[in-house]
């Protein structure tokens, strides 16, 4: 009879105990995602990382700094032609991302309610997503090039004497990034905005707040964390700019962005190690910018915004 208490204790099945810790068959649903992440992100990343520490014999880096693990990095940061691609890319990517986010706020703010033709307006704003970069570049060249419609109109109206150079330079790339990046920023901002309960602004109005005060004290603080995320995504998109930097930019000088440098190393010099190092630097710069933005975001209110989103 002494063993009775031990027997009386109900045995919980293993399956139940695992389920308590969140381990059950639905975990299998994660499998495809895990496979993809490992095969398409983790493996290439780790491969590239180790490659970047093995300078290729006979490459510029190896000739100058030997075959130590940091030779490629040392070359990148000592050669202004390579190093400056960081600033070139930041100079294009930061303003483009900032513009996309800031421009999307008033438009999304105006469009969050229900009104006639909302779907049509949204479609027009979002269509550029469906256009490839190449098509956008073609369009930019045709419209804003030296003999494009814009310049012809400006010349005919006598506003300018010589065609304005808006392509094959810095501005061409920025325009292209705005055209393709704005719809993303707009859609994200719109969804963050519709997640904010409209009664909050109405409450603020009854408390004497005019439209600017309502935006400044109620909507903006609740929207800011979403804008930070939108900025990060827009920035990552813009920072990896490559095709438009070549097609509507000036890839030799003004718009020699970091991805062009990586491409140059990999497919013209066949220095995969250097290309990997550049890719790693590119990732690090993106991480620093995102880290700064998210650090600022961490200080904001991020709780419920009372809306349906």
């Amino acid at each position, binding site marked *: 009879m002494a063993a009775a208490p031990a027997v009386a204790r109900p045995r919980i099945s293993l399956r139940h105990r695992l389920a308590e810790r969140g381990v059950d068959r639905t975990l299998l649903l994660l499998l495809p995602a895990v496979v993809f992440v490992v095969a398409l992100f983790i493996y290439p990343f780790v491969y590239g990382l180790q490659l970047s520490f093995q300078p290729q014999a006979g490459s510029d880096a190896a000739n100058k700094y030997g075959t130590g693990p940091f030779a490629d990095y040392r070359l990148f940061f000592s050669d202004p032609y390579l190093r400056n691609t960081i600033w070139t890319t930041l100079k294009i990517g930061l303003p483009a991302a900032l513009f996309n986010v800031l421009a999307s706020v008033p438009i999304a703010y105006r469009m969050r309610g229900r009104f006639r033709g909302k779907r049509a307006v949204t479609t027009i704003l979002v269509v550029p997503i469906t256009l490839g970069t190449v098509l956008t570049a073609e369009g930019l060249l045709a419209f804003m090039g030296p003999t494009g419609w814009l310049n012809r109109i400006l010349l005919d109206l006598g506003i300018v004497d010589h065609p304005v150079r808006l392509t094959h330079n810095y501005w061409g790339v920025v325009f292209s990034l705005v055209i393709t990046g704005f719809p993303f920023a707009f859609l994200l901002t719109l969804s963050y905005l519709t997640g904010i*309960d409209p*009664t*909050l602004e*109405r*409450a*603020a*109005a*009854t*408390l*004497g*707040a*005019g439209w600017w*005060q309502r935006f400044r*004290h*109620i909507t903006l*603080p*609740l929207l800011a964390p979403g804008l930070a995320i939108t900025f990060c995504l827009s920035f990552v998109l813009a920072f990896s700019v490559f095709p438009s930097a070549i097609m509507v930019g000036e890839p030799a000088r003004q718009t020699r962005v970091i991805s062009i440098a990586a491409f140059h190393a990999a497919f013209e010099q066949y220095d995969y190690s250097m290309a990997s190092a550049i890719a790693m630097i590119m990732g690090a710069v993106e991480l620093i910018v995102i880290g700064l933005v998210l650090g600022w975001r961490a200080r904001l*209110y991020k*709780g*419920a*915004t*009372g809306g349906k989103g």
Partner: protein
Amino acid sequence: MSRSSTKISELRLDKVCREFGGVRALDGLDLTISGGEFVALLGPSGCGKSTALNCLAGLLPLTGGTITLDDRRIDGLQPEQRGFGMVFQNYALFPHMSVRSNIGFGLRMAKVPKADARRRVDEAIRLVQLEEHTDKFPGQLSGGQQQRVAIARAIVLEPPLVLMDEPLSNLDAKLRLEMRTEIKRIHQTLGLTTIYVTHDQEEALSLADRLVLLRQGRVQQIGSPEEVYTEPANRFVAGFMGYRNELGLPVSQVNEKTVVLDGLGGGLTGVRRDDLGARAVAAIRPEDFTVGDGPNATEVTVEVVEYQGREQAIQARTDDGVDLHLRADARLAPGDRVTVSVPPERVLVFAAESPAAPEEVA
């Protein structure tokens, strides 16, 4: 912005109309409210009561009519220029601000000097008994506490008019009673003119000095709680104010003030409230029936008994197959045969074609 004149003497609504795409949500509302009054707008959902409130707050433009506050037309003003306090159904507290900042928001917008604002916020916090929660955020508060913040935020400016849009409908039954008393107490303390929207007749009766019953955007009756309760103007108001039995019966004899209907045993005598045709509707409260012999007596079979503490809610059926709702102190069981009676002055007889109240809303 004139926030100075806290006490108003008169708010007048003249033929206020509001249409939504051709549908009249509010159809010619005439109402005069004097300073310090507590008025309840009462009606089922879709009756236009919230529309009326939003029109008053300035959140919805009128499509017709005028609103005047002490001889000043205000219907063209933006909500922020009207300076009315409003309590929203979902509270609409600013989630990123502490309790103190929420309550002080209006004072901040009005650029009230800091020391003065602080004193007034403290006062409001004390009034709604939230002293221990001043630095919390709305998300950390219970529903009842959030409601108190919303009320404090609306009254801290001592607005000429406080608007409340079903403020208790999101609370559980116990808290609802508690907050009801609280709202009454605050009104008695500050004497702020208040307009309160609700679909709950008990809430309206217990809080308001005057009730406005609305149906499909039109006023059905305006009166004191007692007037509306004992002398409903029409069948709709009767149905809404708890006259749960509505018996459609043929008219057998019409006198100047009373009427006799066929049915319910030897005929049902009641008070005539309308011009009657061949058929009429008798409205009777469940609690006006008594078990036992008396006037208008009829024999019924008990069908459903709901225990409600002191008394029981009973559904019974007459021999003619008419269902009656009544209340009884005596312990009855399904299947019992009893005689019930109702005094003739408690039987209100309306014309059969007058509109009925909808089924009771939750």
